[in-house]
């Protein structure tokens, strides 16, 4: 009997030790013994050379755009409207560069949903303008997503008769609406960057796990998610893939300014950078680390094929849906191939579960 007591006691002790070790792991963000130097380097690289500089650059572009918009609203003439075009394009391109890291502060702030839910609901926007300030609220998730952000600016500043609409005697509401959009963008962008520069950076780089909700899990999931958005909302849906070939050109990203193709290429190029980690350590190097060099080469090659295929569609993309269907079809196929690699082979190899929910874009 003593022996049995001993074994029960011993077992309980072992359970206690293992559970303790286990719970330590779960919270062990700053556990020096838990360091995998490679993964540590990879996450630091993502943070310090891609995410934070990307956000910083975006915020700079927002500031420039804001100044140009203020100029135009104070004095709505053609030359100042023309002067908006480049800052707007640069801001949108800078956004494409940071739409991938949609987790942590960005997702808590609903940054992407607020800044880039397209197509925007133009009728709702016009109604809100007629009803005036106070009639609309930009802080309602889902409801207000499609009446603000960059797509709303795209419509308000680049659709037909823009100048006339801003010159009318009744244009005060319209001007205020644009200012309100910019205020919201600036607030979110600033808050997001502050949090990344603050506590989130160490939370992100200190967690080397790959499970659901972990940094590596996020990176792999978001690569696949963005590729899915490329296949669907950015190219496939306006192209008529879900609608028996009937093209919905005005549902593509940045339809009014006509930058759709540039944005798509920028988005894909950014995704490639997020796959490679830029010049530093990225998921591609991790694949080499776990002896999957062949997969790394396949994916890198497909990135180039897909980027070239998207860039080969004549601008504007919205017109090419009808006029250059084979080029769009080709890009669509290549993007799907890339999506397949990311969603199956890369996710499998990195032991990451694809869990992303439908939380963007539609």
């Amino acid at each position, binding site marked *: 009997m003593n022996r049995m007591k001993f074994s029960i006691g011993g077992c309980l002790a072992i359970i206690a030790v293992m559970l303790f070790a286990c719970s330590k792991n779960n919270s062990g963000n700053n556990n020096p*013994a838990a360091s995998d130097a490679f993964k540590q380097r990879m996450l630091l690289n993502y943070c310090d050379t891609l995410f934070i500089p990307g956000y910083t650059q975006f915020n700079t572009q927002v500031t420039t755009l804001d100044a140009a918009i203020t100029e135009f609203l104070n004095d709505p003439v053609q030359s100042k409207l023309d002067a908006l075009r480049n800052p707007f394009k640069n801001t949108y391109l800078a956004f494409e560069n940071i739409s991938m890291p949609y987790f942590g502060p960005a997702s808590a702030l609903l940054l992407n949903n607020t800044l880039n839910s397209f197509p925007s609901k133009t009728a709702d926007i016009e109604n809100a303008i007629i009803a005036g300030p106070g009639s609309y609220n930009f802080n309602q998730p889902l409801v207000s997503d499609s009446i603000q952000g960059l797509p709303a600016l795209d419509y308000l500043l680049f659709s037909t008769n823009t100048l006339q609409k801003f010159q009318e005697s009744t244009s005060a509401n319209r001007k205020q609406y644009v200012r309100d959009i910019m205020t919201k963008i600036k607030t979110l962008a600033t808050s997001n960057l502050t949090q990344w520069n603050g506590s989130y950076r160490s939370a992100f780089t200190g967690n080397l796990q790959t*499970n659901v909700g972990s940094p590596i899990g996020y990176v792999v999931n978001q690569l696949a998610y963005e590729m899915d958005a490329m296949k669907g909302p950015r190219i496939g849906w306006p192209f008529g893939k879900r609608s028996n070939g009937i093209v919905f050109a005005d549902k593509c990203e940045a339809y009014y300014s006509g930058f759709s193709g540039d944005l798509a290429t920028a988005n894909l190029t950014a995704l490639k950078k997020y796959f490679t980690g830029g010049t530093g350590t990225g998921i591609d190097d991790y694949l080499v680390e776990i002896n999957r060099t062949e997969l790394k080469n396949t994916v890198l090659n497909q990135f180039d094929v897909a980027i070239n295929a998207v860039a080969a569609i004549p601008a504007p993309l919205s017109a090419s849906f009808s006029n250059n269907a084979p080029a769009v079809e080709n890009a669509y196929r290549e993007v799907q191939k890339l999506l397949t690699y990311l969603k199956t082979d890369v996710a499998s190899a990195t*032991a*990451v579960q694809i869990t992303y929910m439908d939380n963007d874009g539609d």
Partner: protein
Amino acid sequence: MMATNRQFLWKPVSIAPLVIFRIGFGLLMFFSILRFWWRGWIKELYVTPSFHFTYWGFEWVKPLGNPGMYIVFAIILIAALCIALGLFYRIAIILFFLCFTYVELIDVTTYLNHYYFISLVAFIMIWLPANKNYSLDCLLFPSIRTDTIPAWCINIIRFQMAVVYVFAGLAKINYDWLILAEPMRTWLPAKSYFPVIGKWMYESWMAYLFSWFGMFYDLFIVFFLLNNKTRNISYFFVLVFHIATAVFFPAIGMFPFVMIVCSLIFFPAAFHQKILQRLPLFQQQNNKTKAVYNFNNNNLILWGIILYCLIQVLLPVRFLLYPGKLFWHEQGYRFSWRVMLMEKAGAAYFTVKDSTGRQFYEVDNKEFLTPLQEKMMSTQPDLILKYAYHLADVYKQKGIIEPKVYAEVYVTLNSVPSKLFIDSTVNLAAQKISWKNYDWVLPWQTK
């Protein structure tokens, strides 16, 4: 033969192991279900989804929505507690079995081997007199109290445990697991953040160690647990093995704890007696009223046991009837104790066409499926078929005449690059769900 029969089935043995098993099982279920509820999975899995993958033959099983599903889970919770307390045991265990199995039948994509195990054990327990000692039923109806029960009441549970372990072990005897050390080779590097041992997770010897140890453990643990001399040390291995799996692979959820608790059934009566004596309000039976619990129709029980055991042994080997690689086509994969055997992921793109083939609509899976459902569907042919039927229905309602459903599905299995999984020129809506081999699943290729 008759002698063994008597020994294994009818010999009166102490009820103590069954009572401890009842208490352990009831409490474990109570806390598992509580955890399930706490994590919001009732809503996520059974309330929110608009479509469910039903089991073939059980298409009539439908979720009850809100608050229906919560009521079902509340019943399971209360029943589990009643099982542990031994209160209105027979009603409680029947309710538990029916409600739990009902929930499992709602959606194939939530299938887990240990849920199947729980359903089976609950079914077995319906027939066992587990409340006839140390239970509230005994307080309410003292006459039901008994000290001994026929041996089969314990042995049937041991048999069920043996089926789980041995078939899990046999399933690991394959090229991928033993020679390539997949999927351990893929999964372990993800654990490099562990203190102390983390640095070895990239090493292939670690993958081999896990694979081979797992295989030997599953194959032989039951025999060591059955042996008096090795029982204590082997239970120690049960603890180490299952806690290790819980730490390394948290995604398997309650499974390790279910096995840790259920393995206690292998300990002798004296062990369980000792535990009972330490529990509050336990009364030693006075020898005068010592009663042996007897069943009315031993013959019926004998045939019932034989039939049950036969099914349990045959189900896991039914895969032998299908040609090709089991891990690829998964025909005969479920209900066979194949746990953590493969890393498989897929991407599935569906297109619906009208009868002329001129109209086409690509499907956005997110519109119909949850991420879990999409993930499971993308690698399992029968689920692909079920989804295709559903799409045909949906598009028929949208006005498409005789919708045809085609799927371009790519699957990667155990580090072999993703390949086309099924024939993308086959109209899935016209294919039948059946026991027959699905000839539209493309053959497995390694390169």
